[in-house]
């Protein structure tokens, strides 16, 4: 089932999941970031409704919780794709043509850097360095460094894999 078809029942499930996480940390201080991490791990992102529940649970204002969550680049407030494609835009990768890869992926997926496709299959992001400049230009998909650099092929392969999994 795709994430898009999430109805009211799923919202409830999300909140229950958050409450479960909150219970784990009950009575402890300085745990906000841990809670946010756990929630994101479970749900893939931080849905709006969960923030309010978290705020109440830790006894902080919603504004404060949002302030903390938005400080970190790795907390997301919108759903993320099943496949997260990260294109490195560090110096080494840039010199070796990562810009073209990024543009190619943007064209192929019809989304811009930082966006997610409507079917929630792909999220495209840029990173500043992955730490393996020798392999430049680097594209990371779902935490795995790819050998493939052709945007078209990257997308086709991922789509095919997705279909296989679906079947």
């Amino acid at each position, binding site marked *: 089932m795709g994430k898009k078809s999430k109805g009211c029942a799923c919202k409830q499930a999300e909140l229950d999941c958050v409450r479960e996480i909150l219970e784990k940390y009950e009575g402890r201080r300085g745990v906000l970031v841990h809670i946010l991490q756990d929630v994101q791990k479970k749900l893939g992102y931080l849905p709006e409704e969960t*923030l309010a529940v978290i705020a109440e649970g830790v006894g902080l204002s919603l504004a*404060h919780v*949002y*302030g903390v969550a938005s400080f970190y680049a790795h907390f997301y407030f919108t759903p993320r794709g099943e496949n997260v494609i990260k294109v490195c835009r560090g110096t080494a990768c840039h010199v070796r043509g990562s810009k073209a890869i990024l543009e190619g992926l943007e064209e192929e997926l019809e989304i811009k850097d930082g966006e997610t496709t409507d079917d929630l299959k792909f999220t495209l992001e840029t990173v500043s360095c992955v730490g393996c400049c020798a392999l430049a230009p680097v594209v990371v998909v779902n935490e795995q460094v790819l050998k493939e650099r052709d945007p078209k092929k990257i997308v086709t392969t991922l789509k095919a894999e997705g279909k296989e999994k679906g079947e």
Partner: protein
Amino acid sequence: MSELVTVKIDDREVKVPDGVAIIEAASLAGIDIPHLCYCRCLESTGACRVCLVEVEDTKGLVASCSRKVKDGMVVYTNTDKVKEARRFVIELILSNHPGDCLSCDKNGACELQKYAYELGIEKTGFSMKDPGYAIDDSNPFIERNYNLCILCGRCVRICKLKGADILDFARRGMLTKVTTPLDKSLQESGCDFCGSCLAVCPVGALLEIDRRFRGREWEMKETETTCSYCGCGCGLSFGTVEGEILRATTKDPCDYLCARGRFGWDYVASPERLTTPLIKKEGALTECSWDEALSYAAERLLKLKKEHGPESIGGFIGAGSSNEVIYLFQKFLRACVGTNNVDSSARLLGFPGLLDFCETLGGEAIASLEDVEEADVLLLVDADVTAAYPRVGVAVKKAIANGAKAIVIDPMETKVAKLVSLYLRPKVGTEEFLLAGLLKALLDEGLFDEKFAKTKCDNFTELKKSLNGFKMEGVEKKAGLPADTLKEAAKLYGEGKRPVVLFGAERVSPQSLKLIANLLLLTNRLKGSVLPCLLLSNLQGAVYMGALAEFYPGWKRATEIKDKFKKAWGASLPDAPGLSAMEMLEKAGSSILGMYIIGGDSVAQFPNATDATRALSSLDFLMVQDIFLSETAKLADVVLPGLTLPESDGNIVNMEHRVREIKKCVESPVQSDWKTIAELSKKMGCDMDYSSEKEIAKEIKLLFSIPKRVGKGSCRFMVVEPKRTGEKPDSKYPLSLVTGETSFGFYDGIRISHSKLSSLEPYGGEYVGVSPEDASAMGLEEGSRVRVASRRGKIEASVRIMDSLPRGLLFMPSHFGKRNLLTSDDIDPETKGPRCRLIAVSISKGGKK
């Protein structure tokens, strides 16, 4: 008081309390250290680095807002090194601040501009960067232009302290921005529009939308006066240009105003204001001259007086008028017309029950807002302080933040109830059982002043006897609260060192008042220990001025003081006791034939509006003086334009019994209310020679004084048998309905309905609050239309699902004009005011969108 230490600042030696920040010490020495993020009433963050100073024997510069003084410290605030650092910081801030000073409303009042000028910065040495944020003016009052924001964080901190706590820094680095959760609009974020953020913003990032391009600070005339909405009587300052109010603020940015006080003044300039007198001719209200209207009114009133006696005439005045107007109004009725039939909205909002309460305890018992802030235990009974009297709400929040324990008794889970140590939620209408249970628990646990109760108070034995038979199990059965919880509350309250009881005077029953008085007597807490919260600005003043039928000015019963006023006024005064407002309406058309009503919309104020309208329509002669053509005015034979308080001079008395001055900030084409009364009196053959409000005030002063503290109390326990209050629900009307205040509405609604404030109310205020349980049981959704019916009538409303309500209780805002079609005009025999604050209703689906 902490110890004093000696510090030397810029070669000036000063003694300051130990532990203050250098910036505060400097301020005590008369030295102003430049600062941007620091604000006296807020926690220091040391963020802006503008307040850097040099401290001898300390490496580097230190932020004077965060560094505490030490004995013998030597500080330099204006050395070259300091100035250079400061210039660098200001230049950095300017690099991210568009220099649009030419058309900025804060020009001349901007703190950043001031320091840039003082440091001689012509242009920042850094490249300028325009953040390019869209300006947010999606709400009616506050323009947020974050391009101008310097990230000082004052708004964030004051919102936490006094507002709804909806602001914080989000993101980081160059993208840092002050915002609401998920960057939503202020309305969606639950902003309560107190505008405290506006007052502290050092630059033009936060501005009153209404003042944009209409006047800069130096072009405004400032008039310091008093807010005329609720009974708090907060000080405010109107900024006016060419006779128009551009903004309301406080002289000290750390002082508080609520949404009404800060933004609720656009009604003054409403084009719908009445400016010309009207006379009913052939059934239609027609414009006429002042002289014609007053002559006609005088003739009609004299005729009634001659043919049916002075007792056939009555007067009613809203408690939104000044002392001077109210005093003159009752003098007119008593001395010129010759009747004691003069009453005010005080009757509908807790008086005269509250008078007996004060007389029992003595005037010293009344707490001030400072007492509330410094209390260690607070007991709130039926008081939605944040909505009805927001300044009290801020005091309560401050006390809680300082560690006070608070107990809330209220069937509605108010905002404050969520913050307190102990929330007691009685079943609807059972507060009296709960209060009696508290008394009993105090007695049982020995948490009272036995010596005082026995020797200084009357009736202690009777009280004890009555409570002996009182069973705590009964409280559990009736109010739904276990004995242990009551004991916990009694212990909390009983062991408090400086406890203060607060209650909503318009909501507690007369019996509850007596129970609260017993509670205070029993624990011998008669100094600054109770604050009856009053809904209207001058309720207390109306009572002092004699606008209750049984009382003459000075809070004296008519029977005991009449002779004094006979002499002073040089008139023969009536012997017959006056009728209360409720009684006048009851007798309208039979023994009451003429009425003179000033202020407020009486039809909207009186319970059972259908009957009230019928009663007012059946009068021979009705004269109404008001600022708008209200529902009451539409029924009148003569309508006279009235004046708003921002257009008047005078005084009011707030809920702390403090006299507050009202000053005229804008001229009005309408003549003063007191002048109208005096002219009418003259036309009726009783000269009233006053040249100004000041002269009336002088006369009042000669006759009696308004003490902040009323005399000594009678200290008499009152035996009360607790009862369920309100109309009992039955099978036809199974639910209870309570009316109350909301943050953006106000009581009679006449001012708010002509203000942009009303646009912030959900469904324009025309809603009925339903608990989630009731809503799901009845299949109601947010926004669905329903008919609400009581034994008096029925109205349509939108459903608003409110988590704060318990099952079985509905809520309507008191400014929802039609709600009084439902309410009951049953008269309480003792107070002669309305008996039922809770009414039985039914709710059914249907009605037009």
